[in-house]
């Protein structure tokens, strides 16, 4: 037994007027497109493989001019960026393993401010304490001197000052392992080591504009 035919509960009276519904659909459409675009823009920096500098003479010259660089000694340059999560992870790794004695290891730390602030100074103290050479530069100086636009980047120069490696630290974005030691050992032992992509942060304005056209990630340098 149930309610007889014709006595079904009436269709739910809509408390939403057609105009309001149409407005809702329009707003939802805009919202969906916006969220999709923003989502894609957010993802791009995570997955894009950033460019590495060409191992040309200019970079080789810059490597030879590194503090502590001497003839007959290999040099390793760790280019890291203030506020870049991947750079921080690499820096932490380096601090943990400390600098190797069989080569000259330098940390080139990119800062946003024109001058080193206490944070940068603290990083310098920690790096030097771990045996690394340390220098901080602005993004502009980095691009001008090294032609580097994205970090974290590892550059290896042999005893003759030739660039033997220029690339990232890991095979995949967000990878846990930092492969600097296998890379250094591989290159020094003469094996062919393929350059890893750089998954991290764009440093130059041009590169930031390219991978973050909506300026979500790089809208302000201290919010990366």
């Amino acid at each position: 037994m149930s309610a007889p035919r014709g006595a079904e509960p009436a269709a739910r009276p809509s408390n939403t007027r057609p105009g309001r519904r149409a407005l809702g659909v329009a707003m939802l459409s805009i919202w969906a497109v916006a969220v999709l675009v923003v989502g894609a823009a957010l993802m791009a920096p995570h997955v894009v493989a950033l460019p590495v500098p060409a191992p040309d003479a200019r970079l080789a010259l810059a490597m030879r001019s590194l503090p502590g660089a001497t003839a007959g000694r290999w040099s390793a340059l760790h280019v890291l960026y203030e506020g870049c999560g991947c750079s921080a992870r690499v820096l932490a790794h380096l601090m943990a393993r400390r600098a190797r004695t069989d080569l000259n290891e330098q940390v080139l730390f990119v800062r946003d401010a024109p001058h080193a602030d206490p944070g940068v100074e603290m990083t310098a103290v920690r790096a030097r304490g771990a045996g690394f050479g340390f220098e901080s530069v602005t993004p502009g100086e980095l691009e001008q001197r090294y032609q580097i636009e994205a970090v974290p980047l590892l550059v290896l120069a042999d005893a003759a000052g030739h660039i033997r490696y220029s690339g990232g630290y890991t095979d995949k974005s967000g990878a846990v392992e930092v492969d600097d030691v296998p890379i250094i050992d591989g290159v020094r032992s003469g094996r062919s080591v393929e350059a890893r992509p750089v998954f991290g942060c764009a440093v130059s304005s041009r590169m930031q504009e390219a991978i973050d056209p909506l300026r979500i990630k790089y809208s302000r340098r201290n919010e990366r």
Partner: protein
Amino acid sequence: MKRVLSYLALPAEISDFERQYLARLNRIALVFFACHLPLFVCVALLAGTSIVQTLILTPLVLVGPFIASRTMTNPRHLSVVFGFTAMCMGGLLVHFGKGPMQIEMHFYFFTLIALLAVFGNPMAIVTAAITVALHHLVLFLILPSSVFNYRASLWAVGVHAAFVVLESVAACFVARSFFDNVIGLEKIVKKRTDDLRLVLDNVGQGFLTINLDGSLLPERSAIVDTWFGPFVPGKVIWEYVAGLEAGVPEWFHLGWESVVEDVLPLDVAIGQLPRRWKIGPRSFSLDYRPVLADGKLSKMVLVISDITAELERERFEAEQRDFLRAFEQIAKDKKGFQGFFAEGSEIVSRIIGAEGGGSELRRQVHTLKGNCALFGLSRLAAFCHDLESGMAEENGAISTADRARLGEMWGTFGAQLRALVGREHTSLVEVERAEYASILAALAGDVAREEIAWRIRSWEFEAADRSLSRLADQARAIAGRLGKPAPTIAIEANGVHLLPERWAEFWSAFTHAVRNAVDHGLETPEERASAGKPAKGALQLRTSLENDDFTIEISDDGRGIDWQLLRQRASTMGLPCATEHDLIEAMFHDGVTTRCQVSEFSGRGIGMGAVRAVCERMGGAVHVASTSGAGTTVRFFWKDMLRRMDPIVLGPRFPAVALAQGAAPIANSVAAAVAPLEASAVMRT
């Protein structure tokens, strides 16, 4: 493809159950996704991601479902919006949880796709999958080299996508199964219920379901609407059913309160509810079926049957039974029955015409009831019994409707009677063949002309033994109904003749004395045996004319009057009870009875008062003599009856002496009667 689409797209109809389910689930989903904001803040803190981004981007994703919940009326559409939202939230988690755990955060997509199955709508899952695809498409448009440039091989990307597709397919299957077998179950039940209702709606009974507060639930059969008008959900039943007799709604309301108060046992409380409704010309019987939950009443199913036709049939059958009994009575004693009918018609006229109440009206009703019962008119007797009960509650008055009903019933009975015996020929005089021959012989002989005239005049009178025989039959009938053996009845009429139309009222009332004798006087066989009496009681009915004084007497050999009990009852009613005379007076007082319960025959204490009232109206008096254990005699006595100008009693012989002594009234009467009789009498043999 068409089959796939029909599988993914649900049927357009949304049942109440699904609507309620999705409304609740959509609310939960909105809260669930809103809770992502604090979660993402925590994740951002742990992963070192921007809190500001978290506080901006998460609400941005929440805007969509919020707008949808405010503008969409179709709950399924809102569920689809949540499919889109889910993937966006998954993306935010991956973004905010960057670092070593970022890759693990992708599992949340699979979790969310699985969770979307609870909406029972494959389109929510398809939307989620499409959202992921669109995301990558837009990413490709923004950064054409981005999709495959993280060195993932094509097969790795393919496996990645395959997992999403595979889970989406599985989730769609689960969602559709959930819809078909759980949400859709309600539709299956509804269809079966519709089939069952089709049956219920086509039976003669109506079904109503009542909530504990008396309000109507939607479950009912269609015929209820036909009977009682359009259904009003939530209205209490005693207000919904219009046209009930006065007092019935209040009765139902009070009875229902008793049912739900749970003070009385449930069956007892239900027993106090009305069992019948009368609405206009229709009658309904009610049957209450409690629905219990955990031993407590949760609702009540009211089974209603239209018994109008059944009652009409019962009424017709009762009428036919009464008619048959009347036929038997007429065949047995036509004159007596006609006399009863004539007197009954008088009583009915008096009852209908009476104003207000009073003891006289009660006596009339009581007399009519008794005579109807004796002559087998059970419906009329029962109706009079109900009238008496109603009079007791209404200060002795009878409602206009009841008077009309009595008139209608009596009229119906009269019409049947006339159809059976034809109109009463009051102008005819019946005479037995022996009397006819005797008169002829008298005319041929030397019998005085006055005596012949007297004998012809006596033809209008009825021999008292016929009246007494009638009463004897009634006494036997009463005894039978009371479960007593038929008493031995002695009739002693002493040749008395009575003018029927003048004595009809008395005989009508005299039945009370007969009933009293049989019901109150005669003991049960067991009592009689223990008292050393024969099992059968004995009655004597007697008329006599002695020295112009006329007596009608009824005697029994029963238990006698219980004077002690009578004294108590009289005392209770504030009546004098000091002497035997007081007690006899009390016995004739309305309402005084030695019975504790009112029965069909006696117990109201009205009958004896009625018969004495008639006796006294006719100029008589009543004497009572009773001996405990030996019996009672009630004697109705009229002094100088033969000396009246208008004789209503004749003795067995021509009163020559009385005439010689100057009994002028009779002589004059006879002389007056002879002329018209000689002119127009038609004698029957």
